[in-house]
């Protein structure tokens, strides 16, 4: 429902990274991590990204999405565990924090190789 908001922010972040590190070069791909509990659907994000990228240096760039499952860490004993349990499997405490799976992160961008660089 709100994937366009995420796509617009993604475009802004990727353009900023490209401007800073490789000004003037076309971005060919984005590596993105989508949390299972981020409220974002990968297929909708891809469609929204294609729209948000139009007319920018990201137009036509591939969006490589990796999904990340929800993960917890126990505040009492430090044990890490996944969703599906109602308490820490090691010590039984229920005071836990979420360590992964709730955000959408831009991990990396790939830009066209510049002159004088080895193509990869």
């Amino acid at each position: 429902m709100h994937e366009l908001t995420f796509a617009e922010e993604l475009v802004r972040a990727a353009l900023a990274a490209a401007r800073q590190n490789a000004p003037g070069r076309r971005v060919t791909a984005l590596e993105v991590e989508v949390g299972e509990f981020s409220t974002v659907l990968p297929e909708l994000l891809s469609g929204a990204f294609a729209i948000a990228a139009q007319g920018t240096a990201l137009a036509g760039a591939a969006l490589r999405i990796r999904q990340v499952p929800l993960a917890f860490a126990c505040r009492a004993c430090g044990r890490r565990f996944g969703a599906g349990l109602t308490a820490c499997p090691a010590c039984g405490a229920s005071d836990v924090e979420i360590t992964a799976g709730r955000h959408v992160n831009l991990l990396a961008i790939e830009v066209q190789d510049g002159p004088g660089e080895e193509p990869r």
Partner: protein
Amino acid sequence: MKIVVVRNVLGDNERRAARLRKKFAAARSLVVNLLGSPGAGKTALLERLIPMLRRRRLSVAVIEGDIATSYDAERIEKAGAPAVQITTRGVCHLDAAMVGAALRKLGALPDVLFIENVGNLVCPAAFALGESERLVVLSVPEGDDKPEKYPEAFAGASALVINKLDLGAHCKFNKARAVLAARSVNPALAVFETSCADGFGLGELAEWLIGRRAAALGLRRPAGTGPLASRRPGRYNP
């Protein structure tokens, strides 16, 4: 050439929310982000809680988020608290920038500030507003499968309020199923059961909020407040 970035896509909102959180802490305000489907009873809950908190000499104000109309802000003012209405004109959630703008209209921060989010069990879960507590309201007629179907809203909450218990006789709602599903994505979730029609369970919820504010401020926690109100026998819980 690959350039490593590693950046939360909603980082701007997270930073704005962090600034709001500092501001709320400096003003000693407990800020509660209220999530739930349209019609779950979010406004009705506030209409009940406002007089209870005011009787405990706490000042209360409400920021109301809706796609259109100021009906909810009018209801809140009738219940005795100042309200600022945000109409998002189609946007399905509130974000930290909208809350920041509403605060400028509100003036001084109260002891307890409720932010009633747009009625929606999906999108509001992704946007931090600087709140100290996130309450998700699930009403009995919506069905006990909602924590399984919309887990994001439950994963990020500090308390689940199961509302409209008075309609329990008319709906097949398995509380144990709903609570188990919600806790399996959020083991620390506190659970309350309420009925705004007859006031059931609202005292416990008000006491919990007062206790959370006291804990945040380092005051002594009032006695007799626990997060497991649902285990207590009562009218709907023989």
